């Protein structure tokens, strides 16, 4: 039998823009994007829950759209712009969502939370005033085992309202 390190482990160099910074890292061709982010780049805020695209814990933004980090090989993301929970937190892009989740305790163990926030962020960028049903529908790809979802729906609805109120204030003449 072979005693060489597996060919599957042979490293490939990939380059991304992660949270606004250009990075290059060595990955095995079989490494998923979530593994690369968590291991090579030490961005452990993105979580692996099911590794089959069912639970939504691994959602990150890839070129501005939410994608499952577990369903994509790191090499496939070569050249892409990736934003993770860490970057979105530091930029303040989701500060209102985070504050509302905190205020309403829309998280318990917190393992699903980064994926929830990324999904909520995308939802509110598409729909300014989603109904509760639309929010629940949008969260259908995010498992939460702790909260029962209601506080999450409440938090997203409250942020949508606040953003809409702010927009109408800013947009109103005089």
């Amino acid at each position, binding site marked *: 039998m072979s005693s060489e*390190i597996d060919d599957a482990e042979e490293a490939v160099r990939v380059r991304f823009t992660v949270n606004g910074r250009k990075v290059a890292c060595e990955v095995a061709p079989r490494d998923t994007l979530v593994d690369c982010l968590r291991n090579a780049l030490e961005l452990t805020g993105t979580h692996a829950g*099911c590794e089959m695209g069912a639970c939504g*814990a691994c959602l990150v933004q890839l070129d501005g759209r939410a994608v499952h980090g577990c369903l994509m090989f790191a090499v496939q993301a070569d050249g892409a712009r990736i934003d993770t929970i860490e970057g979105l937190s530091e930029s303040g892009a989701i500060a209102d969502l985070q504050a509302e989740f905190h205020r309403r305790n829309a*998280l318990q163990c917190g393992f699903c939370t980064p994926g929830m926030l990324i999904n909520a962020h995308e939802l509110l960028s598409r729909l300014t005033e989603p109904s509760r049903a639309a929010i629940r529908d949008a*969260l259908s790809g995010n498992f939460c085992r702790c909260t*029962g*979802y209601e*506080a999450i729906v409440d938090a997203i609805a409250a942020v949508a309202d606040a953003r809409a109120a702010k927009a109408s204030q800013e947009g109103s003449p005089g």
Partner: protein
Amino acid sequence: MNALTSLDRPNSYIGRSVPRPNAKRLLAGRGRYVTDIRLPRMLHAAFLRSPYAHARIISIDVDAARALAGVHLVATGADIARICAPWTGTLDHFKGMTSEPQLPLPLDRVVWAGQAVVAVVAESRALAEDALELISIGYEELPAVVDLDAARQPGTPRVNPSGTSNICFRTQLDSGGVDEAFASAAHVVEEEFSFGRHTPVTLEPRAIVADYDAESGSLTVHHATQTPYQFQDLYARHYGIPEARVRVIAPDIGGSFGMKLHVYHEDMAVVGLSILLARPVKYVADRIESFVSDIHARDHHVRARMAVDVEGKILAMDIHDATAIGAFSTYPRTSVVEGNQVVRLIGAPYDFKSYRAVLEVVFQNKVQTSQYRAVGHPIACAVTERMVDLAASQVGIDPFTMRARNVIADNAYPTASPTGYKFEALSHEICLQRLRGIMDYDALRTEQAELRQRGIHRGIGIATFVEITNPSPAFYGVGGARISSQDGATLSLTPSGEVRCAISVTEQGQGTEAIIGQIVADQLGVAQDHVKVITGDTEVTPHGGATWACRGAGIGGETALQAARRLKANILEIAGLILQEQPSALDIIDGQVVGVATGQLRLPVAEIARIAYFRSDTLPPGTQAQLTVSHHFAPQGYPFAFTNGIQGCYLEVDVHTGFIKLLKHYVVEDCGRIINPMLVDEQLRGGVVQGLGAALFEECRYGETGQLLNGSLADYLVPMAMEMPDIIIDHVETPTADTILGAKGCGEAGTAAASACVLNAVNDALAPLAASINAIPITPARVLKALGRY
């Protein structure tokens, strides 16, 4: 005019909805779960698992795997058995129970499909999995016992060939008078129930990093668990390491629900692998591994009879519960607690005398079952509440009326259930009234009747429950388990006048750290953001039971309260010396020592700390300031603090597709003193949703050969946002007099009654169609079958 309440006093945090201070980290992706931990020189373990539910191991060939570059160790059962003492999942107070001794990896026989057989430790998880493919194991398949009923048949193959039967444990309760009550009853109702096996599904899978330092002979384990102290004891004893050299750290935990407090073979193996290699070894279960190796729960068949008089008064219940647990009993809490609680909790809300139950706990070739959130409660509640509805229907009275006639009266306490559970004070009657109000029950009935005319089938279900919380040593200690029912806290005033509280209750997201901080700040008289709470590290906090069975608030909270009062007394003693006052004339408000009589500010607490730590020379000779206190609290008085409540459910059944739409859920709950109303509500909501999952979706489905058929998150359905209703919550507060704080638990309450409510509501919807359901999960196929359409 608004009266001032206790919440208007400064630092009055008990009873206040304060957000959790530790949640901000998690929201920013800055949690630190065991899954995230990476230590220098850390290696990764993977396990080759049995494809058979029952087989003899004939041969194991690991040569090729050992030769793969990057592989550090390939270990079989025999390799780890040399350093690990076996364990047996029995407790003395379950008389006559049996279970086979267990080792991390088996020596010669596998007993469930998915059991870990060989471990590989390599540079990466992927390499370790590559090596697994190079291992060949020869098996001789043995007859597998898969079905619960089959396991109980005489002549069935035995799960353990050395045993005389497949029975793990059998017990019987009989309060007397049952046969006479049935003979004289106006009505007798009977039903058989079946409850699907399900599994907790934490979003973070089980994870462990074991780090053995050969030079110092010490072991550090970063373990995603609720119970670090229990594991410190187990690792010390089974690997022969002095307890003080074993440190277990439970950092952020991605959900547990009871699942992460049991001994798992892989976790024990990882500790052994680290000892063999003297390097850190990490193992994280992947999702498929979670499904085949995390505990399952709730696999029960129950036969129930209830006798009632002409007015609908319950006279007697007669129960037979058979439950299948896997091939052995789980360690160290066993697999019989669930069944034991089922037979003891049935009928618990109701005032009747004659009760008889038989419990049979049987082995089968599936993964072990054990305690999962609301242990036994959902089954006891579903059986009881369905029987109550069946009886109400026989008598011809409304479900609310039936319950009002039968619940133990609020003025009847203290009292006991027919099974011997002692109740200090419950509030069924007022809860029942409140539920009727928040549901707007009469309006719902009117709406239901109108919609039925239009072929829309809605159902209303209610379920009363009793919950076990704050367990004393009667739960595990008396059975010989080294599982503490007390907790300990070390509270320090820092030199800057802030407070540090290291406490043995643990945090898995329910808000333990938040409520402990609230209690300490409230009792000491300081701002909550000046209190830092530290949990989950055996090296840092005193030994204690940690968080399970709803003991965090009731027992942990009381520990913190008493510790804070002691520290406050010590602070005021020094303040008295400095101010030349009697300590009893002083108080602390908002971090300031004040005069009790005048309310006048005298001295900041920070100044006392400064003097005590840096200028002790200015204190009177002989003064030794004690600004750190360690305090333990063990529950005394009632063996358990029972709580109670009632839930309601409104749903719609599509009789063409069998789909059930949950419209609204209601909870009235009494957990005693509420420390943080928001966190209690969120515990209830989360608990309800886990119960709704059990009611409608969740079941571990097995094929005839004992293979789990739906072991992925695409196939095993858990509740999602779209299917879940909004949940309306109300509270009654009946504090326990056993503690100063008066808090009881609330974590199981939601799960306890949610599935019973749904079962009753679905049956209510189907009643005009002469169809009924007696099994959960209530899948569309089951609904259509009941309707004769499938």
